[in-house]
């Protein structure tokens, strides 16, 4: 148990990743648990704990309407994919930009060379006349935009007895729930 304001600020930043409806209902409660679990004198969230909160937030964001048990595997798969895919694309870009040519993913492997455009002669596999590198960057932008838009998609399912008194139970995609 600790009461460090720095730690609390760190946890609040993490909790901001949860969907708004969940945050409104549970943020203070989860914060209490995080603060209670923290070792005395701790100033910043532990890495494993941060990762756990982020993973949990991602799963909740991707969970659609309806009873949780019905779409659980898909929500988890989607959560994993949406975490890994942009990281992979970003990693390839970073490698292609930062490494000397012979260490790049495509240096020894013609498939990678074509796919990621790191071969000086080939310069990328033209798919519909566009280089894969361009497509990769484009895909990252699209994913980033989707994630940002996702913040406004009301994916949170209301439960009876919570939130505005007039709202008994809203459909999954109603606008005033998030």
């Amino acid at each position, binding site marked *: 148990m600790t009461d460090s304001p720095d730690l609390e600020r760190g946890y609040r930043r993490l909790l901001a990743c949860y969907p708004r409806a969940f945050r409104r209902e549970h943020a203070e409660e989860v914060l*209490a648990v995080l603060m*209670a*679990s923290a070792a005395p004198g701790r100033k910043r969230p532990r890495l494993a704990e941060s990762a756990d909160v982020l993973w*949990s937030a991602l799963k909740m964001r991707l969970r659609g309407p309806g009873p949780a*048990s019905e779409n659980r595997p898909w929500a988890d798969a989607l959560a994993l994919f949406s975490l890994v895919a942009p990281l992979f694309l970003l990693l390839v870009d970073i490698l292609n930009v930062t490494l000397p040519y012979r260490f790049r993913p495509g240096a020894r492997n013609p498939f990678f060379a074509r796919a990621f455009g790191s071969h000086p002669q080939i310069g990328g596999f033209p798919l519909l006349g566009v280089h894969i590198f361009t497509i990769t960057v484009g895909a990252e932008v699209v994913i980033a935009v989707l994630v940002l838009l996702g913040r406004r998609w009301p994916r949170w399912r209301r439960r009876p007895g919570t939130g505005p008194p007039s709202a008994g139970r809203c459909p999954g995609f109603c606008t005033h729930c998030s």
Partner: protein
Amino acid sequence: MQEATFLILTALATTSQHGYGIITDVTQISGGRVRLRAGTLYTALDRLRSDELIAVDREEIVDNRLRRYYRLTPKGSETLATEASRLQVNAAVALKRLNVSRPDLAGGAA
């Protein structure tokens, strides 16, 4: 049912508990083997609430912090009982067979 879920329901079987109480209880029930983190706990609690296996019992403010207590619903008790019997049957079979082949591993009692 995942073990964490089973242990959370077990923690709520006798009395309602708040988040941190559930974490410490689950650690105790599992003999220190399962240590839930806050994110994992609340993902599970959220699912269990959606599935109507648990419900909010009450809220308290302790040291300026919100504590929300959860309790098992009748459906939750039923689900836990079914799962516990299933595990018990499986465990009994395992111990019985071990008792035939390896009495030293089965602990003698089964």
